[in-house]
């Protein structure tokens, strides 16, 4: 799992360096992580499952063994988190 927050102060981490495994080229800078990558592991799994279920909350509810409104509330929480990160 990609670390997304500082273990010391919990601020969002940024990408300092990227490396090509084939030719060993390194790209250095200070890049923001994509919003989706900043989400928790659990939220990312939820989004993957949501996409795989063609965006059907009913199918998600069956898969996760939760009620429909519970799954919808989970999605609403993720939407709020994404909106917060986008600001």
């Amino acid at each position, binding site marked *: 799992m990609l670390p997304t927050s500082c273990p010391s102060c919990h601020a969002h981490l940024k990408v300092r360096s990227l490396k090509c495994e084939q030719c060993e080229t390194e790209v250095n800078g200070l890049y923001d992580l994509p919003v989706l990558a900043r989400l928790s592991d659990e939220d990312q799994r939820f989004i993957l499952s949501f996409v795989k279920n063609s965006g059907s909350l009913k199918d998600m509810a069956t898969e996760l063994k939760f*009620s429909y*409104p519970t799954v919808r*509330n989970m999605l*609403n929480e993720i939407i709020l988190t994404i909106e917060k990160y986008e600001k």
Partner: protein
Amino acid sequence: MKNKINLRYIYNPFEKIAGWQALLYGLVFVVLSGWIGKHAGLVFDGAIDAHLSNDVTYYQALIILVIDVVCMSIVMYVAGLFVTKNFRFIDLLGTMTLARAPYIVLSLAGLFVTVPETADLLANPYRVFTNPGFLVFIVLTIPVMVWVIALMYNAWKVSTGAKGPKMIVGFIAGLFVAEVISKILISIII
């Protein structure tokens, strides 16, 4: 850990059950509690009321339960529209109906109670202490009412997805209005 999870579902089964499924289970509990309650001389004459009375027929007991459930669901739905959006009426109807399930405990307990005459009680209130079954029933109503209200609160919270002070105020206001409207409707129709 397993016990903790199970205990949570006693107060909030709606994380797992909502919509049509909750409505079906809820109706079974509501009809059973109404039918047993009629035998026990117990009537659920309000959105969150339960009183000892032998003055209603089976038909009236059923109509009263329909008024309770429909009134509670519609009022809470309207209250929900003020505090949030994007929720389904069927979830509220189903969960609010299932939230009444603990009333079956009162109905069953009522079968073992001999209700003292009101005139006797007024003449000598201490007579209540000579009727342990009635005392146990009275004491039992408190945890059952707390359980029902906790279930209704979680039904409202899960079904609407509302949060914060708005959710709490909306629930209290909705509960109060539903109680008043159901009382008025019952007094008019029955």
